[in-house]
């Protein structure tokens, strides 16, 4: 029943061209963010006397210099996404992906103001400084503009190419010459459209496309996805999909990743500016604090199989599952136990992550645990280390994970016992 109802819908969402291009295109930013995170962590280690020590050793400007790579990775997130999303979408349409990517980057820059506001020391009013691209818009603030323009420009690009629009040249013009003109046409049309859009928006009080999309789309979606209810719904769907054996994180992540990524980066910006970190919900909230051992928080289940099982089958699966489980990969458990389509194990598989969302949310909102500091910790980072790094090197981040592991243990344990007993009985029967 579940299979019949869930499968086609999930398939359609996951296979949808634009969502797939979004997901695959944004992945292009991840290696850069992880590299930038190394420098970010080093800049904000929460040890007493650390900033003073660094200033003594490397000079007063040490932090600015240390964070150069952070600006070159986090702060061009949207620019990279503009290229990546267009590239992946063009691939789907089987048109020249490299060209589509380049055109999309140009379209994105065309939608961005070429000036920034700057308040000189001692002045009361900000002055407009020309000849620059505002870094903020090239980073997570511009992420949605980049994604939308990447799709818009690639749609125009592939439409013109697939319609095979040709410019008729008089006889005597060499065919390669006319071809080279035709090749320019799709890109020209993209630039023309975005240019007109920019001119129109400059006439309104929004001033730029970034403000339109920021206020009408990115901020409301961030507010929605950043709530406790939003997180619970997302996690519920991830678990429901996995319960039928479908990759829930990949399907739900395709829709939610841009929102959570923007939330992550807002925390990073606040950390860097020395302000209070705003968002509890971020990509790392899920990857690091909820899905310990993989979707379903199954690390404790792997440990139970390894150390507490009576049945040989459970023990054997435990030995197989513990290695990947430490790195948050749990397909051996989901398909091997199996949890998939197994009513007994689906119950804790769905309940545990939901409970962990609530404990982590409470922990972070009361200040017991630090909020994620915008550090892009890879989702394969083992628990304890992951919590420490995601909170910017705070031991209480690791402690939050320990508490979550304990909660997961309590929920999984009775179901593990019943499941192991079943396996044991089957084995005893087979031996008689």
């Amino acid at each position, binding site marked *: 029943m579940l299979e019949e109802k869930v499968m086609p819908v999930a398939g359609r969402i996951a296979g949808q061209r634009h969502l797939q291009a979004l997901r695959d295109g944004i992945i292009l930013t991840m290696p850069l963010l992880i590299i930038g995170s190394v420098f970010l962590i080093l800049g904000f280690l929460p040890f007493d006397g650390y900033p003073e020590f660094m200033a003594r050793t490397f000079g007063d400007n040490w932090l600015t210099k240390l964070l150069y790579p952070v600006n070159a990775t986090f702060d061009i997130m949207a620019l990279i996404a503009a290229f990546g999303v267009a590239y992946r979408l063009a*691939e789907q349409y089987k048109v020249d992906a490299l060209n589509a990517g380049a055109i999309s980057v140009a379209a994105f820059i065309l939608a961005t103001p070429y000036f920034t506001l700057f308040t000189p020391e001692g002045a009361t009013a900000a002055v407009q400084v020309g000849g620059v691209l505002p870094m903020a818009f090239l980073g997570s603030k511009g992420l949605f503009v980049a994604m939308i323009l990447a799709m818009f420009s690639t749609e125009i690009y592939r439409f013109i190419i697939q319609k095979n629009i040709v410019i008729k040249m008089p006889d005597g013009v060499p065919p390669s010459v006319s071809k080279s003109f035709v090749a320019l046409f799709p890109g020209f049309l993209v630039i023309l459209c975005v240019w007109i859009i920019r001119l129109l928006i400059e006439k309104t009080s929004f001033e730029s496309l970034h403000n339109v999309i920021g206020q009408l789309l990115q901020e409301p979606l961030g507010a929605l996805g950043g709530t406790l209810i939003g997180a619970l719904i997302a996690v519920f769907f991830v678990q429901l999909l996995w319960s039928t*054996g479908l990759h829930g994180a990949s399907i739900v992540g395709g829709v939610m990743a841009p929102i959570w990524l923007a939330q992550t980066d807002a925390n990073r910006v606040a950390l860097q500016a020395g302000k209070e970190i705003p968002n509890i919900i971020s990509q790392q909230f899920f990857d690091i604090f909820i899905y310990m051992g993989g979707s379903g928080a199954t690390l404790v289940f792997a440990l139970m199989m390894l150390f507490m099982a009576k049945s040989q089958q459970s023990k054997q*699966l435990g030995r197989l599952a513990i290695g990947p489980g430490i790195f948050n990969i749990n397909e051996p458990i989901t*398909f091997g136990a*199996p949890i998939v389509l197994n009513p007994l194990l689906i119950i804790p598989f769905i309940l545990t992550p939901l409970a962990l969302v609530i404990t982590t949310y409470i922990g972070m909102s009361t200040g017991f645990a630090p909020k994620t500091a915008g550090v892009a910790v890879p989702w394969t980072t083992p628990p304890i280390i992951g919590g420490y790094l995601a909170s910017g090197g705070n031991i209480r981040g690791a402690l939050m994970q320990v508490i979550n592991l304990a909660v997961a243990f309590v929920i999984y344990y009775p179901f593990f016992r019943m499941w192991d007993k079943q396996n044991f009985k089957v084995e005893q029967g087979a031996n008689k």
Partner: protein
Amino acid sequence: MNILLCCAAGMSTSLLVTKMEAAAKAEGISAKIWAVSASEINNHIDQADVLLVGPQVRYLLPKLKKTGLEKGIPVDLINSVHYGMCNGAEVLKFAKSLLDS
């Protein structure tokens, strides 16, 4: 024999690759076996003789079967029990049977 495996990130299938390589070695078969994420398939499929798909991305199967038809290679789903237990020998046998038929 070139066997390409795919799942969402190419991570959990890489686990199976190790087991399949061991099985191939034990049987004395020379085979190149590797795993990629679903988005990378286009860059790898030309080198493959057969494409095996992880059960967690089985919603991609219709599309991948079409790609396989264009490239003239068999494409099919890995049995989820074999997948879960990382049964390299069985999956290798399955790959061979796809190639033989």
